[in-house]
């Protein structure tokens, strides 16, 4: 009985699988054929997908990537801490906390709304120009600060979305046990909130990885800038593609880790297969 059903199901699955895989392959092949038979293809191939140029530019791009990675790692920690704080401030209730809420709201509106480039230019060139003793002049310092200011505003909103998905009865249950506001956040609300927004957080981490390259307006060379420099030699755009491949290669493992973190153990009690 069950064997028959299972056989039918797997036959159906196999059919759909074949159909969809088949159609995908067909579409891809048609697109590829269209591409390589187009009149401009040889030129495009040489300009964008030249193997020699890729090999030649790879070390420089990788070197630049090292900057992206370091900046990303250092900033990510600060961004998460600051973003979480802002999100918690924005979700405080009661008139007493109005100033904190307003502060967090203004902060988010401001630094999310401002183009990162402007923040970078203002801090990277404006702050050192003040000639204030005690203020660091390191370009990297100001670049990292700008990234943290800008991205913490984004991450705060993601965390806020997460916090607000946790049903108030969960918070009530935690408080009823005698946990303080902070403890119920720490042990009940945030663990649920964070897990739920992992895919959206991953978005910001991936963006950060790429946007960390914007610090190159301050004169440091990141992967994209390295590609640009390499392109300038002979007007071959392959280095950009190399940079893109390298970024994607970095994104994929991060995304898989995030998927694992956010995957709920099992599918809950009812109707997991629906």
């Amino acid at each position, binding site marked *: 009985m069950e064997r028959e059903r299972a056989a039918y199901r797997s036959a159906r699955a196999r059919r759909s699988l074949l159909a969809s895989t088949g159609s995908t392959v067909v579409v891809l092949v048609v697109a590829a054929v269209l591409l390589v038979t187009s009149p401009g293809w040889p030129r495009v191939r040489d300009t964008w997908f030249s193997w020699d140029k890729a090999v030649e530019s790879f070390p420089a791009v990788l070197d630049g990537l090292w900057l992206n990675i370091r900046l990303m790692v250092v900033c990510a920690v600060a961004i998460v801490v600051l973003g979480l704080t802002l999100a918690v401030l924005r979700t405080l209730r009661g008139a007493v906390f109005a100033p904190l809420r307003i502060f967090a709201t203004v902060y988010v509106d401001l630094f999310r709304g401002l183009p990162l480039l402007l923040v970078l230019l203002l801090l990277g060139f404006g702050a050192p120009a003040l000639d204030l003793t005690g203020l660091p*002049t390191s370009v990297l310092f100001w670049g990292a600060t700008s990234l943290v200011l800008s991205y913490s505003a984004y991450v705060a909103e993601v965390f806020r979305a997460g916090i607000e998905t946790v049903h108030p009865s969960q918070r009530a249950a935690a408080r009823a046990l005698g946990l303080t506001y902070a403890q119920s956040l720490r042990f009940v609300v945030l663990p649920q909130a964070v897990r739920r927004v992992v895919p959206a957080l991953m978005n910001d981490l991936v963006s950060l990885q790429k946007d960390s390259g914007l610090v190159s307006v301050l004169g440091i060379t990141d992967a994209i800038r390295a590609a640009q420099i390499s392109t300038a030699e002979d007007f071959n755009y392959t280095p950009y593609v190399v940079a893109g491949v390298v970024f994607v290669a970095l994104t994929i493992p991060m995304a898989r880790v995030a998927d694992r973190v956010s995957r709920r153990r099992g599918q809950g009690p009812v109707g997991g297969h629906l």
Partner: protein
Amino acid sequence: AGLAACGAPRDSSSGTAGGASAGATGSAACDKASLRTVTAGTLTVATDKPVYEPWFSGDDPTNGKGFESAVAYAVAAKLGYDKAEVTWTRVPFDSVVTPGTKAFDLDFNEFSITDERKKAVDFSSGYYDVRQAVVTYQGSPIAGATSVAALASSRLGAQVGTTSLTAITDQVKPSSAPMVYNTNDLAVQALKNKQIDGLVVDLPTAFYVVSAQLDGGVIVGQLPAAGGTPEQFGAVLAKGSPLTACVSSAVDALRADGTLGRLETQWLAGQGAPELK
């Protein structure tokens, strides 16, 4: 303004002529010993990364090849620095022109001198008289144009931050908004794709584009000089830099002794292009 501190008024050096030997500028304040450079004893010269032909060669300013590299070494020599005493540094555009402590003494990167810009930075005397030229591909709608007016209905492009762009908006006044690119090579790419009809660049770059970057590219012609004063490239120095007067006098001296002219013929070949009416 601010030059008094240098103690070397601009005029005092203009009469100086002759050899490139150290101290020959005739002004005591402009010798190597008394110049307050960023790093004492060396002249730190900046440019962007990457840099392009024919102003530099192979993205390497230290080789003395390319017009601006050669001019930089000539100026340094005039001020008494030999080749080993010149340090190059790569500085992005924004960092050159925003206020703040500078990590260089002077910067060569095809900066056009304008009065507005002088409010923000110091310029040396001009080392090159710029003419803007229009580049296109064979068979384009503007390939045979002989007057500025003939360009008015075309789609032109230029690099952001250049006076080429100003030339389009002020002189050509085309009916469709100009396309603005981050770099000249992106603009060339757009021209290749026929996304624009023509590209406005300075004349030497135009020759380089036509010869090295475009298959079947043509120079439509030079734009007429705008207004009375000719456009010039000058070295950029920090606002109020004590070196400005000395660098200017060095440039003036190089112009006077024919060095600049020689370097132009060496690095910026093929000056002849029809003038657009």
